[in-house]
């Protein structure tokens, strides 16, 4: 039996009453695993402890990776120094895709378990993921100018990243479009799931349509086709970006939880006055 979740606002105002009423009869089963963090207090305590080290580690790793990539790593024999934009471009591309996967995971958690944190996380991941998608598009366009001789080509990867950016925008707009936030969470969850099914199809069809972008240099299944002196800083900066992404989402999530609490407290004051 899954623990019963109360919406955040109610829980903060009514928690004292709720606790005493329940204690008088039978103590409720202790939620286990990640369901514990449906309790906003639990989540806030954890986030307060985790966010600063993640943010620091992410910042330092990003700085090291970018410095290494921009100043120490060798220039490409063909592209020259223009290749250095890769250390910014590739991590943002990876995070833009990973962010959408995270949205889909939140959608599952929201639809299956009604996990309140997943709903809030979906609200907060959207803009961060969209920002990384935009960063990827901008850096890619700046990279294209010296290497391909043009800011934009209708190449498969560029186009599918552009479509991904639009998918993010649709999700961001939909989740905020309802007066009843719960309705927005449900609708946006369904949209995220449709999107995640459609993404590979979009990717495949766009690839069939046109390809100019270079093929994969890194894959999980084969040895990387890349010099280790360039691969290492790329990995460091990708890890740094990922941690920064996590820290950003955690900080936004904590802020959203606290905002809800504040609103609930203010509402309670208005009601009692």
């Amino acid at each position, binding site marked *: 039996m899954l623990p019963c979740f109360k919406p955040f606002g109610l829980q903060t105002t009514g928690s004292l009453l709720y606790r005493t009423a329940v204690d008088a009869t039978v103590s409720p089963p202790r939620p286990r695993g990640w369901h514990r963090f449906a309790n906003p207090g639990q989540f806030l305590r954890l986030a307060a402890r985790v966010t600063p080290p993640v943010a620091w580690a992410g910042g330092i790793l990003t700085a090291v990776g970018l410095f290494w990539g921009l100043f120490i790593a060798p220039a490409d024999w063909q592209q020259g120094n223009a290749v250095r934009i890769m250390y910014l471009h590739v991590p943002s591309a990876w995070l833009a895709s990973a962010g959408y996967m995270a949205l889909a995971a939140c959608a599952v958690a929201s*639809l299956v378990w009604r996990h309140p944190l997943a709903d809030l996380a979906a609200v907060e991941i959207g803009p961060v993921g969209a920002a990384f998608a935009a960063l990827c598009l901008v850096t890619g366009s700046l990279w294209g100018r010296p290497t391909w001789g043009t800011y934009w080509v209708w190449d498969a990867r560029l186009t599918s990243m552009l*479509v991904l950016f*639009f*998918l993010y*925008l*649709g999700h961001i*707009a*939909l989740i905020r*479009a*309802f*007066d*009843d936030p719960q*309705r*927005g969470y*449900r*609708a946006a969850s*369904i*949209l995220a*799931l*449709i*999107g995640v*099914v*459609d993404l590979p*199809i*979009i990717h*495949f*069809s*766009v690839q*069939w*349509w046109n390809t100019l972008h270079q093929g994969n240099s890194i894959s999980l299944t084969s040895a990387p086709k890349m010099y280790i002196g360039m691969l290492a800083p790329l990995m460091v900066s990708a890890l740094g970006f990922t941690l920064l992404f996590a820290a950003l989402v955690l900080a936004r999530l904590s802020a959203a939880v606290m905002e809800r609490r504040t609103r609930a407290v203010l509402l309670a004051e208005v009601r009692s006055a």
Partner: protein
Amino acid sequence: MFADLLRRELRLGLRHAADSVAALLFFVVVTALFPLGVGPEPKLLARIGPGVIWVAALLAAILPLDRLFGADAEDGSLDLLLLSGLPPAGVAILKACAHWLLTGLPLLLASGPVAIMFGVEPAPFAVLMLGLLPGTLVLSLLGTAAAALVVGARRGGVLLPLLVLPLATPVLIMGTLAAEAARTDAPYAAPLLVLGALLALCAPFCPLAAGAALRQSV
């Protein structure tokens, strides 16, 4: 009961024909603007014709989506539809059928004359029509899912293009690829088959997603 409800949808659609006619007119006017925009050179028009028709059909199919559930949600008949005994996914299939019959099919019929006006050759013409048949069906299904998502939203009509168009890019790409292949005497079966595959994928999943969205909306 499905047939009765579908008949009701069609009767309502024909009595308020303005929505469907507006979409059709939009389609014809937009396609007519392209020769004015890019110049009347026949070779160019014959080349871009299928693409223009696909894009215009995509945009026109979105126009009536706002009212697909909107009118029913406002006067409460959506609640009655969901209580009628049909599962929510069945209601979604009903709406998708109605949308295709009232918008998709007229668009399909209108694209014939428009393609002739663009001077599209017979081979790409046939492939264009063959692609538009599953294409408009997929658009109706995707559009129904998106329309179900925005029931009750503020500015739902503005949201719809942002939701549907990115999801519909594969349909557009496959449809135009097939017509382009037919124009250049390349094999065109594969993109058409992919369109069929997209239809086979959308036919069960879009109504399910739309049904889930509808259940949340009431």
